[in-house]
């Protein structure tokens, strides 16, 4: 009889919840009972509220158990695990869990199903089909396919990816670069991390296709240092892809070259801004650059450079494998494809939700999320990271797409939704937005560098009731100055959380 396959995720969140200890206990428990098992460390499916989520491969599918702690294992084994087990932690077939089954997984289709480092497993689920097709196409045809898909950059700015690629393709140069922005610094976001840890070859394949499309032979993944698990997975995946001839010279036996290198950031939120990231990659302080010139024309080392977010590059393999039209068929209006939302903060069922654009915030917070973890009423949600708007309940029925959210003064950003219960003090949240800007500003623009420090002081005066009306006026002027006088989103968008907190929750500011 062949060994029973058991899957335990090796994802950072799963490990933070004890997945390593669970894996050890399963091995020990099985060996003590003489059960022949093969333990596979898969990626997470992003249902973090169920982690550590253990899966057993049965004839008719994978049976899930979760959340499992080492203390649960003796009981689990006694009830028949890893065979048919009637246990309180049993969740039935993993793909029948409603939270997962109701999603539309395109970019995260493989997440959790496979050992992330196995190229064979990646191929068995459709991996490298896109690259094989791209190798048979002309550069312009690849760019056209991406344009056709309607894909817009998933880092936050939502710029059409195909247009960016076209600019790089059209700019003649001896050397061009593909840079993956994996500096996922927004609080409440973890989609990039999940993709890189659960399905790293998808990113590698996407970057290789990008290289073919624009004529770049070198690529860099700029990964933040706060992601040590991710670093380990990516370095190993890159080495394996090189050994298999999927990276380097003569990819897949073609005459084409694409080299890929992993670079680690050093703790600077601003390096998620693309021009600051490029300076950092060049070994400098991560200072924001003036635009123009666009990075697509003068980017890394002054050469034409595609800078794309992990999820944008992650979508490329699907677009090339299935065609741009297939991808475009999901979504609504000008927001095509799927939306990757991350439910975070004070949330009962937190994790990654991939659905077509158009779902409402309420469906996500109350439906998928199940409300707060503390059981108290939700008071507000911050959408789009630390530079995103705080939205009150009256705005939760807005569909989540780039344009609709902009109409209520919000921005989708990277799709992070941070939930707060009714104990939140919105004046403190506004103050923190300014404080964070002061800590993380690159310092180039005075309104951002100094304005944020003054912002903290002014908000403190408002909270203390010191000439409230006057200081609110000062704060408002300061916000205008930051918006008008900052080169990038750091100083330009910090006023969003500040003003939305003030507008929707004035009672917290000592009114």
């Amino acid at each position, binding site marked *: 009889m062949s060994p029973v396959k058991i899957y335990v995720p090796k994802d950072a*969140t799963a490990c933070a919840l004890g997945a390593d200890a669970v894996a050890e206990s399963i091995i020990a428990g099985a060996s003590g009972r003489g059960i022949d098992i093969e333990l596979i460390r898969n990626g997470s499916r992003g249902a973090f509220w169920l982690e550590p989520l253990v899966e057993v491969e049965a004839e008719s599918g994978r049976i899930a158990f979760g959340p499992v702690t080492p203390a649960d294992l003796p009981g689990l084994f006694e009830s028949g695990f890893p065979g048919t087990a009637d246990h309180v932690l049993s969740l039935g077939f993993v793909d029948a869990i409603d939270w997962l089954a109701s999603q539309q997984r395109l970019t995260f289709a493989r997440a959790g199903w496979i050992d992330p480092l196995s190229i064979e497993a990646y191929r068995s689920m459709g991996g490298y089909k896109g690259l094989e097709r791209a190798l048979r196409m002309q550069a312009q045809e690849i760019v056209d396919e991406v344009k056709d898909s309607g894909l817009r950059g998933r880092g936050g700015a939502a710029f059409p990816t195909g247009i960016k690629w076209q600019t790089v393709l059209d700019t003649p140069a001896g050397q061009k670069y593909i840079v993956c922005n994996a500096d996922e*610094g927004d609080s409440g976001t973890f989609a990039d991390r999940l993709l890189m840890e659960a399905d790293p070859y998808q990113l590698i394949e996407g970057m290789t296709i990008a290289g073919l499309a624009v004529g770049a032979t070198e690529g860099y993944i700029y990964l933040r240092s706060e992601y040590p698990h991710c670093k380990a997975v990516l370095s190993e995946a890159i080495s394996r892809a090189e050994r298999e001839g999927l990276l380097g010279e003569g990819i897949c036996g073609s005459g084409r070259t694409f080299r890929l290198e992993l670079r680690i950031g050093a703790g600077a939120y601003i390096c998620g801004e693309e021009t600051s990231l490029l300076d950092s990659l060049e070994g400098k*302080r991560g200072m924001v650059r003036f635009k123009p010139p666009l990075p697509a024309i003068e980017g890394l080392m002054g050469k034409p450079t595609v800078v794309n977010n992990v999820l944008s590059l992650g979508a490329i393999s699907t677009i090339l494998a299935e065609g741009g039209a297939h991808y475009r068929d999901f979504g609504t209006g000008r927001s095509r494809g799927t939306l990757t939302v991350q439910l975070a903060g004070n949330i009962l069922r937190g994790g990654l939700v991939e659905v077509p654009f158009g779902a409402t915030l309420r469906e996500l917070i109350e439906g998928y999320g199940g409300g707060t973890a503390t059981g108290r009423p939700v008071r507000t949600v911050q959408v789009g990271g630390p530079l995103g708007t705080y939205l009150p309940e009256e705005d939760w029925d807005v569909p989540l797409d780039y344009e609709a959210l902009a109409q209520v003064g919000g921005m989708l950003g990277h799709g992070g939704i941070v939930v707060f219960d009714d104990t939140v003090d919105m004046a403190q949240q506004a103050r923190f937005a300014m404080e964070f800007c002061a800590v993380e500003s690159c310092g180039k623009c005075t309104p951002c560098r100094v304005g944020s420090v003054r912002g903290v002081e002014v908000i403190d005066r408002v909270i203390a009731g010191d000439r409230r009306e006057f200081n609110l006026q000062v704060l408002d002027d300061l916000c205008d100055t930051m918006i008008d006088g900052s080169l990038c989103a750091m100083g330009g968008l910090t006023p969003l959380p500040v003003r939305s907190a003030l507008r929707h929750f004035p009672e917290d500011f000592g009114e």
Partner: protein
Amino acid sequence: MESAVNSHQGRVGALLPVLHSVQDKLGFIPTEAVPLIAGALNLSRAEIHGVMSFYHDFRSEPPGEHVVHLCRAEACQAMGALNLEQHARERLGIEFGETTQDGLFTLEPVYCLGNCACSPSIRVNDEIHARVTPDKFDELIARLESEQ
């Protein structure tokens, strides 16, 4: 030192990888290392100081045995991170950026560890811990103390 510099020389933007290599080995970047790196990469000492002081990660003093990074960002705030921060300072008797007298712990702030669905989060060396309550924090610290 030499191997750290040599393995990265000639690469695009070698400075960050060099600084990371040195710090991974020694835990910090000693003052004596700066002129050596500067010479090897044809940069001024001022440029290296500029880069080191720009990024939160690089340190010029040795840290404690264990570096504890406490997440202060919004998702963790929503789950009581500020309370945990207060508790951690009191338990360890230090402020952010400081090291305990016995040289065991250095406390640092961090803005997001990407573990936002299971907040609050802390990172101890390369390990992330989820849903950290003050009690759980104390258990963790006590375990690390007893391992000495």
